[in-house]
């Protein structure tokens, strides 16, 4: 089974974010592979191992630094990669432009499935999976937590998270699948894996090389930090019962919830 995995390099979740104009200050950030993309890489590797055949190709749009996340995917076990290394395109890219670049890179590849994290934890937009599928003219199933493929690779039966429960969906391949937490437990790259990854082929492209004509369709005008919450009120009292009584009064009289 041949699969493509789209990954994005994002700031680690613990990163302190500082804003600057319509963006963030990138100095001092620890960059990692988007955590949801790790589920996507893992699932592609598992399918390849189960079928004992096929290739896993990583595709990523990002500036120079993104090669580290690409190498992480290769170190986990992916075979080849395309790095769309185009800082000018990336800086202005919204989810639509990102999907357009990824679609252009993937078009012409041989694949049975495309795995993508359900959302990147930097812009939290969760749009690329559906847009990519639309641009490639194939179906999409989002929020996948279980993935099984038929022996002849003609279709997949997947479980997806829906509001208040789960749905089992059958879809012919190729298709795009967005990975939700619970799909699998991503492996760590082994030391031999990291050594091997250094020799694996990475095809570096500019957006123009891929013939991408579509630009962004939305733009960030300004970034700001959330307003500091004013210091909260600590509820005092002689014991827990007294504090609970005061809290009940506040919920009734001030918050007016009860």
């Amino acid at each position, binding site marked *: 089974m041949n699969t493509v995995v789209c990954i994005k390099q994002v700031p680690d979740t613990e990163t302190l974010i500082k804003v600057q104009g319509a963006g963030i200050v990138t100095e001092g950030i620890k960059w990692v592979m988007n955590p949801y993309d790790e589920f996507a890489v893992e699932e592609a590797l598992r399918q390849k191992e189960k079928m004992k055949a096929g290739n896993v190709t990583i595709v990523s749009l990002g500036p120079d630094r993104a090669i580290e996340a690409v190498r992480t995917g290769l170190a986990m076990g992916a075979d080849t990669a395309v790095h769309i290394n185009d800082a000018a395109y990336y800086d202005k890219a919204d989810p*639509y432009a990102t999907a357009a670049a990824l679609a252009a890179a993937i078009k012409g590849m041989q694949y049975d499935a495309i795995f993508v994290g359900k959302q990147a934890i930097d812009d939290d937009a*969760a749009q690329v999976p559906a847009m990519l599928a639309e641009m490639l003219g194939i179906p999409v199933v989002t929020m996948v937590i279980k993935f099984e493929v038929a022996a002849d690779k003609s279709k997949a039966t997947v479980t997806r998270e829906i509001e208040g429960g789960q749905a089992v969906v059958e879809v012919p391949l190729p298709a795009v699948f967005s990975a939700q937490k619970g799909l699998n437990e991503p492996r760590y790259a082994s030391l031999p894996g990291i050594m091997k990854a250094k020799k694996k082929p990475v095809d570096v492209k500019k957006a123009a090389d891929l013939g991408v004509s579509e630009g962004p369709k939305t733009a960030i*005008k300004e970034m700001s930090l959330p307003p500091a919450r004013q210091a*909260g009120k600590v*509820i005092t009292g002689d014991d827990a019962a007294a504090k609970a009584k005061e*809290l009940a009064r506040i919920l009734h009289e001030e918050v007016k919830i009860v």
Partner: protein
Amino acid sequence: MAGTLIYAEVQKGEIKKGSFEVTSKAKELGGDVAVCLIGKGAEGLASQLAKYGADKIYVVDGPEYENYVTEAYVQAFKQVADTVSPTVILASATAQGKDLIPAIAARLNVGAISDCVDLKKEGDKIVAKRPMYAGKAYAMVEALANPQIIAVRPNSFAVKETAGAGAVEKVAVSLDTSKIKAVVKSIEVAQTDEPDQTEAEIIVSGGRGMKGPENFKMLEDLAKLFGPTATTGASRAAVDAGWREHSYQVGQTGKTVSPNLYIACGISGAIQHLAGMGTSKVIVAINKDAEAPIFQKADYGVVDDLFNVVPALIDEIKKVKG
């Protein structure tokens, strides 16, 4: 502004509250407000949208819409959108809205703005405010072309009664079934009367300090006292410990919630948890560790053992309610 088209959602035989919220907001922003309501049994519900400001309600109803399938809904919505030619398309960023909106945007060759918490009108443009980096920053975003497609986080706007003309039109959609490739084989939804965490107005949430699954019963009891718009939640620590199912998890790898009241019991307040509940209107924290980071976000803090505070709070609220 020429007009807004809203995607309204039907679930369990009712229109989602989030759909009423965006309809109310569209009315407030001005211009014609049209709504596209899709779902089996939608026709009987359509007129409810009028009192929140819908001037026109397009209904797509039929057995083929019983289970949500992205492609079928995209086709149906696009047919209505082609008729209306709106300048703005709004939807509630529910689980379904999050799936549908980017697919519609790509089909219409425009962008989309996800999970917004506020909207402002600047001339013909809507400038949308949305959290990024798990709520550690906010972005003001605008679309560069029409229709401007925007999904709004549930509970961001109040449901307001402002009557619209409310004309209902049933639309006959000719689905291209050859393109509908995904088939829903089965659906398993928990039988509960509780609202989903993303839509609940009050959430009583428990973390590592709950010490075990059996102790969540008291959080459920407390939530019940707040009425049918309340439910319970959990931190990642409580979910990873196996005390609660993942569907209860609030935070970066769980649900993003924005209730009127969030009561955090025994939750330390890791940044990933704060990311999922930071936009709650009022935050109450109950934790015996005075240094817990949750207290920096809380409007009201109780530093004490939750096993003493919560039962006492249940008794006190019962007294207040009489």
